[in-house]
């Protein structure tokens, strides 16, 4: 390899381009915008008015955060559910009045006062929730009305109650501490608010109610169709908002000790600005506690900073209004373009230089020479099965295969006219094999490793493996489990072709050729799953060799078959066995002790050249529409028979491409070869010249039927 090539290879192997796309695909990627806004605002004000960030001022800010932050969390919960709660200011005022009346006027214990306040908040929230969740009124108008109503109730009581609050003294020591005490420099109110924030973060991001909330906000109709109780989710969102306003009011009351006519006036606008600046989507379905808090800090710093600069209240409001306008603009454009940006940034090509392509011309005399050997293949299930990736034959001669509707179908011997659904698994059933007990073990793309018992019961064996330390995508999930084979002791070795692509866009992994696949071992004795080999280039077919110590596996885009020793003196070693003129798919045993491999596609010189130029492929994925991308040629395939020493015994093609233009897997049974292809609409059966007419796969693995 030339120096330039080596440099390119090193640059693309060690520089993590794929991180950009993976970060963008994460839910917390949106927080970047809010974070940048926060940093900008803080730095501008630090420069303009450095005194703003002294300890005393920061304490003050922290105190304000504890109230605004909690109200912002409640507000964002309502917004995530697809609604809006304009009455938070009035509810806040009512709750502050309640807690101060309870502490100062009625001289109650803190716990009773807190309970009464929470009830007031819950009641207000429940009124909103019933009107909007159950009576299905419009959120904006309804909460506008409740804003006015609650504020009127407040205005009715304030003349009477206001002076009595100031004149009374509370009877509680904890109340004093809550208001003005601090621990380690942080006021207690901040700690209480932090506990609530953490709790709600966990609920929103990791519990079912939180997911239901985001589902209802994201798409109300789909959430309803999925069985979520939309009305009760919306009701509980408004009630939560009310309760959080109550908690904020308790902390506010403890700090301030009195209320006035304008308590809570304009709070809803401030909180709305904070939440939208933070990145909670106005349309619903997207948002988090972190976003609400970052937005609150940004807006509070902005507000305090403007006040410290002696800018008049109305001017400050105007400035905040412009900030809100800007935030809404960014939100709308981000929601619209995020997927486009993600799609164009996700594909991260790497450098791959393949060895010279073996000759395939029909007159070249090469073992891979093109011929018409598969011309007289018989069709099974023509037009009745779609996408049978891997045929499997049991001892009775029945032929099983997956299809793209997620079924495992079975054609009954001997004429294969009857087709029945053997089991419905979902996903994309790919590689299959029988184990010693006659269970059909299958790799299902998009789901994991599953098993169908002889009683047709579908059992999950494993769908996760150990997570690698530095991967951004959660690669403990199995995204595209492809083929499997079962060792003599029952251990199941299977390949995960790529953790970045799935069953419907797997050829795009060729444009990357990055080494996104791994070999995984599931041990049914202790039900453990462990990644055995990593960074493989689309590992695909797997086949245990006759010596019970090693297995052959294919690396599709690298056009080679390797041998991995999992037992014995050479344990852990990997050696290349065969270099091919195309992309190997499934590998299975042949009756004479050798192996069959299907080539799902053939190498082409233009793509081989493009694989050595990753920047070219990156620009292509950015500038050209996906339907026009250069693809591996998976329209043509063939079948190769080889020994475990790498000697090619024969290659079989369907030159006309009429019957089996592409082949992903072949299995031998009693002298015939059964062919399947993941883009075909049939299975094939072909008589192998000179094959043992009594050989079957299950007998070869497990011995004759007991």
């Amino acid at each position, binding site marked *: 390899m030339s120096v330039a090539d080596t440099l390119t290879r090193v640059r693309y192997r060690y520089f993590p381009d794929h991180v950009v796309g993976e970060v963008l695909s994460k839910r917390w990627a949106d927080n970047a915008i809010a974070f940048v806004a926060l940093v900008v605002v803080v730095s501008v004000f630090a420069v303009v008015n450095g005194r703003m960030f002294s300890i005393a001022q920061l304490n003050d800010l922290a105190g304000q955060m504890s109230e605004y932050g909690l109200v912002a969390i409640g507000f964002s919960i309502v917004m995530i559910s697809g609604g809006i709660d304009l009455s938070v200011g009035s509810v806040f005022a009512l709750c502050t009045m309640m807690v101060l009346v309870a502490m100062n006027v009625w001289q109650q214990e803190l716990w009773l006062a807190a309970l009464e306040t929470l009830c007031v908040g819950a009641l207000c929230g429940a009124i909103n929730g019933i009107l909007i969740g159950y009576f299905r009124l419009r959120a904006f108008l309804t909460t506008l009305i409740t804003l006015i109503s609650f504020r009127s109730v407040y205005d009715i009581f304030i003349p009477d109650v206001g002076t009595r609050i100031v004149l009374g003294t509370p009877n509680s020591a904890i109340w004093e501490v809550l208001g003005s005490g601090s621990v380690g420099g942080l006021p207690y109110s901040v700690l209480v608010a932090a506990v609530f924030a953490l709790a709600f973060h966990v609920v929103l991001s990791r519990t079912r109610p939180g997911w239901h909330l985001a589902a209802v906000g994201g798409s109300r109709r789909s959430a309803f169709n999925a069985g979520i109780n939309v009305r009760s989710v919306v009701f509980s969102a408004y009630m939560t908002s009310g309760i959080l306003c109550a908690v904020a009011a308790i902390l506010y009351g403890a700090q301030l000790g009195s209320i006035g006519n304008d308590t809570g006036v304009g709070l809803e606008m401030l909180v709305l600005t904070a939440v939208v600046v933070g990145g909670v989507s106005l349309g619903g379905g997207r948002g988090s506690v972190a976003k609400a808090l970052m937005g609150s800090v940004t807006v509070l710093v902005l507000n305090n900073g403007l006040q410290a600069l002696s800018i008049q209240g109305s001017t400050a409001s105007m400035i905040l209004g412009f900030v809100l306008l800007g935030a809404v603009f960014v939100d709308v454009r981000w929601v619209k373009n995020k997927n486009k940006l993600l799609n164009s940034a996700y594909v991260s090509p790497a450098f791959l230089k393949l060895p010279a392509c073996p000759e395939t011309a029909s007159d070249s005399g090469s073992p891979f020479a093109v011929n018409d050997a598969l011309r007289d293949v018989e069709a099974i299930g023509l037009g009745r099965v779609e996408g049978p990736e891997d045929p499997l034959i049991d001892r009775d001669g029945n032929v099983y295969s997956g299809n793209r509707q997620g079924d495992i179908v079975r054609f009954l011997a001997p004429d294969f006219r009857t087709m029945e659904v053997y089991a419905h698994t979902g996903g994309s059933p790919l590689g299959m094999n029988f184990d010693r007990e006659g269970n059909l073990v299958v790799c299902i793309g998009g789901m994991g490793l599953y098993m169908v018992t002889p009683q047709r019961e579908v059992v999950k064996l494993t769908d996760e493996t150990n997570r690698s330390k530095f991967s951004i995508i959660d690669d403990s999930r199995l995204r595209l489990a492809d083929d499997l084979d079962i060792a003599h002791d029952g251990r199941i070795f299977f390949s995960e072709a790529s953790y970045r692509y799935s069953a419907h866009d797997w050829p795009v992994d060729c444009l990357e050729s990055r080494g996104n696949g791994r070999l995984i071992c599931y041990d049914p004795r202790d039900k453990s799953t462990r990644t055995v080999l990593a960074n493989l280039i689309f590992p695909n077919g797997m086949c245990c060799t006759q010596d019970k110590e090693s297995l052959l596996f294919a690396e599709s885009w690298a056009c080679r078959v390797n041998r991995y020793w999992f037992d014995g003196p050479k344990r852990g070693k990997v050696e290349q066995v065969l270099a091919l003129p195309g992309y190997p798919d499934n590998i299975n045993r042949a009756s004479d002790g050798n192996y069959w491999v299907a080539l799902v596609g053939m190498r082409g010189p233009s793509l081989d050249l493009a694989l050595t*130029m990753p920047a070219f492929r990156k620009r292509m994925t950015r500038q*050209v529409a996906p339907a026009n991308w250069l693809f591996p040629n998976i329209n043509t395939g063939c079948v190769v028979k080889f020994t475990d020493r790498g000697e090619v015994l024969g290659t079989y093609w369907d030159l006309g491409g009429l019957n089996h233009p592409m082949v992903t897997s072949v299995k031998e049974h009693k002298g015939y070869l059964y062919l399947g292809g993941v883009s075909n609409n049939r299975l094939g059966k072909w008589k192998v010249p000179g094959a043992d007419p009594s050989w079957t796969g299950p007998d070869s693995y497990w011995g004759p039927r007991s």
Partner: protein
Amino acid sequence: MIAALRDRFDAFFGRGRFSTSVPVMDGPLQPNQLLEEAEVVVTRPALDNLASVDGAVLFSSGEDLFRLPRGAAAPAPIWRAPAPIPCVAVDGAGAMAIGVDGVGIDIRGGRHDGRQIRTFVSGPLVCPTAALFVDEDTLIVALGSAEFEAAEWKRDLMSRGRSGSVWRVDLAGGKAELVAGGLAFPYGVARAPGNDILISEAWEHRIVRLGSQPGPHVVLDGLPGYPARLIAASTGGYWLCVFAPRNQLVEFVLKERDFCGRMMADVPPNYWIAPALVSGASFKEPLQGGGVKQMGILKPWAPARSYGLVVELDRDVHPVRSWHSRADGKMHGVSSACEHGGRLIAGAKGPGYALDLGAVQGFVAELA
């Protein structure tokens, strides 16, 4: 400076000048399969340069010139050239101008029988792509490229060649006058009203008019393919053959000079990411995402490197109807056509078929 910034921005996102988008085939160019359904007149490998002479059809196949009289069963070879024939012109009075790739043009029959045009002022006639008899003594010659032969058209496209030229040759006096130079592979010549000529400029996918105004004047732009021969129609309009489609990936590759250079050096031309007269024969050809066969079917609207297209243009050089062979068809690479006995015959050079597209008079009824 602003322009440079805007260029970088556009290049990053693939917009504006760096856009790879291709015009959609719509309106009069809405796809159909009429070329696939047409009746086959005759078939020879690399059938090209159709012309109608004295009630017989003339065409070239590689180095041979064939003549198929009306009602005859098989065509008869009438001449063999030392190299493949890239263009043929007839003047209707017995004279023929036959191009020889890499060599020049030979005149056979008529007043100037035996004349050989080998060089112009600019250099040898390496790539004669079209010729037109204005009258018995005047021949318009189009040279596609000054560097590559006509058989190497793909190399000229991928090198973004602009060395084509159009000449007016006075056969009596022997002088050749340059009408326009610096053209991107002129491939078709037809007479326009007045003393003007229409040229199809292939790599710029447009038709330009040369003559009264100084410099080429664009009359039809934004074609969804690379135009080949222009033939004057008896109805007053023109027939335009389009020999290959424009493809978003090819447009992208043309902008990537590095990749182009390496591809032209290392990869055989049949397997380039470039348009072709026929595709799908070998699995070594490049495949695009939309071209993957599902359930054994290739979608007709799949992105393709070859296509069959004949367009009828009216007097004002606007398309009025078209005949297509889509991505899953066979009749691709239509590079020539002629009117013979009141019917339109088109030659698909890719598979080597001459197709009967129907009677010519019938079209007049649709035009006002």
